């Protein structure tokens, strides 16, 4: 192999993909050897500088396991979250119950009102004289009444007078 390494072959070399032919060529070719050595040196410097920088930062802020650990981080947050969820569920559950109770109360009131109205209607229907005319009936000594009580009184008194 007499030709120099192509750009692709140099990249392949850098990631560890190299043929025996290429290895022989690099040993013999100062130009390709120098190119690879320079690239390797630059990448080694870069690796070293990143590690140096990272190590310096890491010493300043050690792994904060206390912040990471969900077991230690959790209890501060979870009960509050669960309490909020439970409260929300409670409200959601209570609303239909409350509405149901209100509705039942309203229905009961309507039923009571209906019952009162019916009683009134019954009373009006069973009345012999319309209520506005009742005072007139009392004034007039007109012993005519459709009420059962007066009929009975009349029936009770009349035979006694006849017996006398």
């Amino acid at each position, binding site marked *: 192999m007499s030709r120099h390494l192509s750009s692709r072959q140099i*990249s392949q070399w*850098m*990631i560890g993909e190299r043929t025996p032919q290429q290895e022989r060529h690099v040993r013999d070719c100062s130009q390709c050897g120098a190119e690879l050595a320079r*690239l390797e040196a630059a990448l080694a*410097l870069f690796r070293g*500088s990143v*590690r*140096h920088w990272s190590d310096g930062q890491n010493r300043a802020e050690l*792994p904060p*396991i206390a912040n990471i650990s969900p077991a230690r981080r959790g209890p501060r947050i979870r009960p509050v979250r669960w309490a909020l969820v439970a409260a929300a569920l409670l409200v959601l559950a209570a609303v239909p119950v409350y509405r149901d109770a209100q509705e039942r109360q309203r229905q009961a009131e309507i039923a009571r009102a209906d019952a009162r109205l019916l009683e009134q209607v019954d009373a009006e229907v069973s009345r012999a004289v319309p209520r506005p005319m009742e005072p007139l009936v009392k004034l007039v000594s007109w012993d005519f009444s459709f009420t059962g009580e007066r009929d009975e009184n009349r029936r009770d008194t009349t035979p006694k007078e006849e017996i006398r």
Partner: protein
Amino acid sequence: MIAAVERSASEIDDLDTLVRLYWPRVFRFALASLRDPDAAGSVAQDCFLKAYRSRERFRGDCSIQAWLMRIAVNLIRDRARNRRLQFWKRASASAVDLEAVNQWIPDGGASPESRVMAKEQLAAVWNAAGGLSERQRTVFLLRFVEDMDLLEIAAATGMKEGTVKLHLFRALHAVRERIGRLE
């Protein structure tokens, strides 16, 4: 294989061990990706919390490192999207950090000339990495900073091995171009 999966599962169950073993790598990868120590710390924390919470889903078909890196890659991607609007605001602060990072050169008794050259090379790689696409930068960092192999990178990024290679080639090409300009 079963023993390896059981071992992995038990390692994941022990959060303290998990953090102790893998925190430096996850933090380093996040730092190199975001170039912001605060954001990197936040991503690393979220990564371990997420990993711990979803540990039952870890089937052991890849290494724990690849699994953690996959979570970190997703978190970084989300954060990078959210940060786009803040980019210019933060750019100056990050530049200060990068300036300091670029000055780092290992002590090796090198001549002043070679130290200057090394600094220039280092700056060139940092600049090239900054100009890469998100995917190219991710695979570049996983390969050349974290020393992960192609299959692990594929598992960590969800890409196919061939796609990982393609992004690596492009990233290396960009780096070589930058270094080439120094001559």
